[in-house]
């Protein structure tokens, strides 16, 4: 379970947020995002020493200032339901990130690494292959020449 999914599930619940500077904010979570920025309503702010208090109708806290969040125990049971139902809906993703194989044989790699496929997704399904057969493994040197050759071949065919 991801911490941010738990946080998302805690929307509407009361929570305590301690910041890196030691201040704490008690309030109801309205919204949060993937940076852990959070929007609270009906907030009580407590100073680091715990001796001063401020009430405010709402506040917005930048995620990177947070030390930890304390959420009600029952929230964790609600997440499990949500993630399960989402997993049921999601179809399996296959065959992503295959890159763009080469069709012509000779000639080295294309300049700028086109079609190397950076996505790492889809466990074990193809991925990152160099595609195409033959050709030298040598890098940039062959690159330019190879392309010229290919074009020449095309011209001949025409």
């Amino acid at each position, binding site marked *: *379970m*991801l*911490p*941010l*999914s*738990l*946080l998302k599930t805690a929307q509407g619940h009361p929570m305590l947020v301690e910041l*890196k500077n030691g201040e704490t904010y008690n309030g109801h979570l309205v919204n949060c995002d993937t940076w*852990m920025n959070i929007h609270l309503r009906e907030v009580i702010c407590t100073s680091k020493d715990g001796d001063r208090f401020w009430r405010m109708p709402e506040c917005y806290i930048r*995620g*990177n200032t*947070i*030390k*930890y*969040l*304390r*959420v*009600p*125990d029952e*929230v*964790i049971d609600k997440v499990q339901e949500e993630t399960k139902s989402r997993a049921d809906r999601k179809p399996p993703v296959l065959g992503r990130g295959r890159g763009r194989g080469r069709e012509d044989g000779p000639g080295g790699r294309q300049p700028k690494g086109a079609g190397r496929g950076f996505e790492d997704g889809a466990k074990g399904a193809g991925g990152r292959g160099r595609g195409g057969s033959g050709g030298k493994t040598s890098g940039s040197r062959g690159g330019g020449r190879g392309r010229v050759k290919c074009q020449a071949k095309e011209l001949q065919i025409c």
Partner: protein
Amino acid sequence: MSTGPGLESLVDQTISVITNDGRNIVGVLKGFDQATNIILDESHERVYSTKEGVQQLVLGLYIIRGDNISVVGELDEELDSALDLSNLRAHPLKPVIH
């Protein structure tokens, strides 16, 4: 026992976390992400002092931001239950200095 690197093998196990501000929090690891943000369930803080035994404060369900985590360790529950915390004295940890 945990195997391999990463926190995956510690999920649903009791772990001990030391935070940058020098706190020691013990709880069950329920989840984590790439930023080492972690979910701790049934967590409690152990407060060390040289004057009296270790105090345990009940915290409950916590999300600790990765920025604030120094160390995550597996807790040997057998060894831990054999400890007599009320007679254990220790200096509190100092916070990390950046």
